[in-house]
């Protein structure tokens, strides 16, 4: 509802397909989120994540999804991060303790440091991992690097290798029969799929029902 826009003049409406979304500058973020939680009834913080715009500046935007359990309303708040090389953003763990792991994941995947977070360290990747995987310059399959444990490397000789992509990311086409809507690779040269040649796909073979 636009009464939020009227009450907080620093908010801007954000383009959204599903529900209300606002852009908020980072210095007003904590006050806004606290007001949303206490006065407007958005008691559930559903997600904390980020967007990497890569070529634009500011590069990273942190996105919060809030839900009001009494009024059944969603709102999305997006805020740009200060700093393109080493982005920072205030932490909302003091408002919602459940944001702890969400912010750790955002730090792990994008490198955004949350000021005020009690225990900011990686959650999916290990502590010495040199990259931030969801940044746009990181390849889908990953980089090659040593396993985090020297003991395992010594016993097995295994390494972290780029995952075998088998022809590229798999996309599911939106239209067609179920068989056509299965996820397909961009490059199918390694498969045994035989597509019908144009002259074959023309007329069905005539069937003889008399014998």
């Amino acid at each position, binding site marked *: 509802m636009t009464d939020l826009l009227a009450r907080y003049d620093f908010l801007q409406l954000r383009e959204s397909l599903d529900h209300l979304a606002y852009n908020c500058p980072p210095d007003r973020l904590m006050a806004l989120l606290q007001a949303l939680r206490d006065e407007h009834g958005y008691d559930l913080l559903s997600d904390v994540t980020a967007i990497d715009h890569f070529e634009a500046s500011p590069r990273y935007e942190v996105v919060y999804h809030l839900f009001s359990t009494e009024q059944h309303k969603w709102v999305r708040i997006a805020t740009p991060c200060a700093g393109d090389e080493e982005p920072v953003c205030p932490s909302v763990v003091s408002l919602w303790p459940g944001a702890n792991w969400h912010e750790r994941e955002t730090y792990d995947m994008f490198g955004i440091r949350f000021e005020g977070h009690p225990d900011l360290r990686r959650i*999916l*990747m*290990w502590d010495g991992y040199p990259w931030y*995987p969801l940044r746009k310059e*990181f390849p889908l*399959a*990953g*980089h090659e690097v040593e*396993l*985090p*444990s020297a*003991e*395992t490397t010594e*016993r*097995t*000789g*295994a*390494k*972290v*290798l*780029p*995952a*075998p*992509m*088998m022809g590229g990311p798999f996309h599911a086409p939106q239209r067609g029969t179920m068989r056509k809507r299965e996820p397909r690779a961009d490059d199918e040269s390694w498969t045994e799929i035989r597509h019908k040649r144009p002259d074959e796909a023309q007329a069905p073979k005539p069937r003889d029902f008399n014998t």
Partner: protein
Amino acid sequence: MSKHTDYNYDSKIEGEVIVSRADAVINWVRSHSVWPMPMGLACCAIELMATGGSRFDISRFGMEVMRFSPRQSDCMIVAGTVTYKMAEVVRRIYDQMAEPKWVVAMGACASTGGMYRSYAVLQGVDRIVPVDVYISGCPPRPEALLDGMMKLQEKIRGERSSGGLFQERKTRQLAYKSS
């Protein structure tokens, strides 16, 4: 008279004694009491639990004794996705198991990394431990897991156990070297 090679028994001759080969006896005992160590990491662990339940009943094979201690188990069933962070733990648990030990890779994630062609997921647990049986499925049905365990039993029955009784069992090689 009898077609068995494992034992030949005629009660009029032997009386109450059965004569057999050492391998046959040892393998019979080992294959019928495989105590699994459930390395249940993700969704496949739920199907593993279902197999332990009454409808599918892994206890028919003597495998209901799911020891969570590697020191007391025979077979490590890797049920679920192994991330690179968890790989150290899986390998260490495998090292702590006593010989003879076997490994079953249950499900797509343990066999090859499954649907996670990703920077965070180990592409198959056979990169760090030697695997005996691969079970495909996402998750495999309990019947598929039981079929896999039966294949493991057949494999155990074919081993040359008596030769290795008083020697150290040779360390098995990994499926492939990463480098």
